[in-house]
């Protein structure tokens, strides 16, 4: 801090920094460190058995696979929604814009039972899907549906502001140089949106990997088939296997931290591309 000038600087540095650090340590850092300290007391064999048993491996495949697929679906439809909200006028636009955040605001357990009711055999959508031989509820497909629901606003809300700030001059230039509209979109607009789309993808993916409430009702939770990794942690806890639960949690935490670093990098990239301060 520069305290050299005649002005003594804004007050409260010590108080607010002290409170921030103390509160953050008590609530977040110390409890989180318990996961790694507990894991460190395990033998290598015990750790490996907990995190790499076939049932746990199957859950990683489902959690990461379904999250990747859901985020990919959301990139496409999230982009179309963001595009519609920014570029088009249509009736009910304000309501659509407000409701895009529903998955942020709706408690996950509520989303979970609502989606299950929709996609169950006799549900609004399930009865028609049943006829064409598609089962959603209580299968891995149900996990995918729940993760698409959870991830959508991340893509829309990351792409929308960048799209709003996008300079129309580049599209005008492309048009005046004879580019067709679709050429302009593909060659000019989409590349400019790429960092935001990737950020949205990463945010949706990171959220989906750890998601629990909206998934467990619709998943059916069959071991080896439709059991997600967070549920494995719960199951181990219920069997009083604290070490095993913690070991799996440490694998998930490390993955989350790596994702967080990637997301931070992507956001800086987005910021530098669109010239805004993050």
């Amino acid at each position, binding site marked *: 801090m520069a305290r050299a000038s005649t*002005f003594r600087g*804004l*007050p409260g*540095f010590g108080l607010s920094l002290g409170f*921030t650090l103390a509160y953050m340590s008590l*609530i*977040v850092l*110390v409890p*989180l460190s*318990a*996961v790694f300290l507990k894991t460190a007391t395990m033998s290598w064999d015990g750790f490996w058995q907990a995190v790499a048993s076939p049932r746990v491996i199957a859950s990683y495949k489902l959690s990461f696979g379904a999250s990747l697929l859901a985020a990919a679906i959301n990139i496409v*439809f999230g982009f*179309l*929604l963001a595009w*519609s909200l*920014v570029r*088009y006028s249509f009736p009910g636009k304000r309501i*659509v814009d*407000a*409701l895009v955040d529903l*998955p*942020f*605001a*709706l*408690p*996950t*357990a*509520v989303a979970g*039972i*609502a989606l299950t*009711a*929709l996609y169950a055999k006799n549900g*609004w959508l399930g009865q028609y899907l049943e006829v064409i031989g598609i089962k959603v509820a209580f299968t891995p497909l149900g996990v995918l*549906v729940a993760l*698409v629901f959870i991830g959508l606003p*991340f893509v829309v809300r*990351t792409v929308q*502001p960048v799209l709003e*700030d996008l300079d*129309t001059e580049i599209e*005008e230039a*492309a*048009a005046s140089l004879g580019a067709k*509209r679709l050429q302009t979109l593909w060659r000019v607009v989409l590349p400019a949106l790429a960092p935001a789309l990737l950020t949205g993808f990463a945010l949706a993916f990171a*959220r989906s*990997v*750890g*998601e629990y*409430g909206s998934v467990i*009702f619709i998943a059916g939770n069959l071991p080896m088939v439709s059991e997600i990794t967070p549920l494995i*942690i*719960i199951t181990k806890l219920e069997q009083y296997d604290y070490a095993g639960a913690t070991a799996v*949690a440490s694998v*998930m*935490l490390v993955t*989350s931290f790596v*994702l*967080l670093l990637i997301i931070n990098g992507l956001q800086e990239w987005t910021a530098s591309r669109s010239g805004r*301060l*993050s």
Partner: protein
Amino acid sequence: MSAAATATAIGLRIGAERFEANTATRDPVWVKAVVLMLALGFFAIFLLLPLAAVFVEALRKGWVVYVAALVEPDAVSAIRLTLLTAAIAVPLNLLFGVAAAWVITKFDFRGKQLLITFIDLPFSVSPVIAGLIYVLVFGAQGWFGPWLAAHDIKVIFAVPGIVLATVFVTFPFVARELIPLMQAQGRDEEEAALVLGASGWQMLRKVTLPNIKWALLYGVILCNARAMGEFGAVSVVSGHIRGQTNTMPLHVEILYNEYQFAAAFAVASLLAMLALVTLLAKTYVEWKASELPKHGDTP
């Protein structure tokens, strides 16, 4: 939400007319039709239908069953615990959010970037792990387990554990809304207030808080919605004791697993209404924030 998204969430939304009036940025009619159909179709199936399903299922057996599910003692106790949890978690994180945003946006110090990353941490941790960490610290076999047992204090499978897990998952909300805004506002106005002789608290009350009130309100609304709706983290530490450690989302789960679908959806419909009120309040705050000049409106 990303920082960029938050920055415009509290900002001016521009209409689509400027794009549709410009031949260079106007899409052909058939493109607009196809894009709108896909986007709104997806929106209807994935967002509108689940929302509608909550209310339809809740009222499937009529109003009598609906009301009975809400006034039943276990439901009332779940509602009370949910309100209590939010009433503790939200003010704590509000205080933290203002302090953290103040120190991050008004001062330069080493490790600031790291501090910002740490504040975001709870967002990237699975809710299940958020519950697990408090079991490891306060549970029977945890760090303080024996000490707590000796003093007859229950944290895990009791209300304090539920509050702690909720504080963890709602930790970043207020700080995240404030930081981009206060960064953009800079420190000029506070410095001017001090030069003119204001005390630190006067500056906070008369300059800083009026400048950030809409973002602050927005952060509190989001924080509250998550605090009342949290399921995974609370589920790990609650112990699911009916009438004692059941929050509303946990009560929904129990009813649902007992095949009392109408009752489960009735309690769920209260939470869905909370979500709708949250979105409405958010829209209102955005509208208010876009009306005001960016700097120094007088209260």
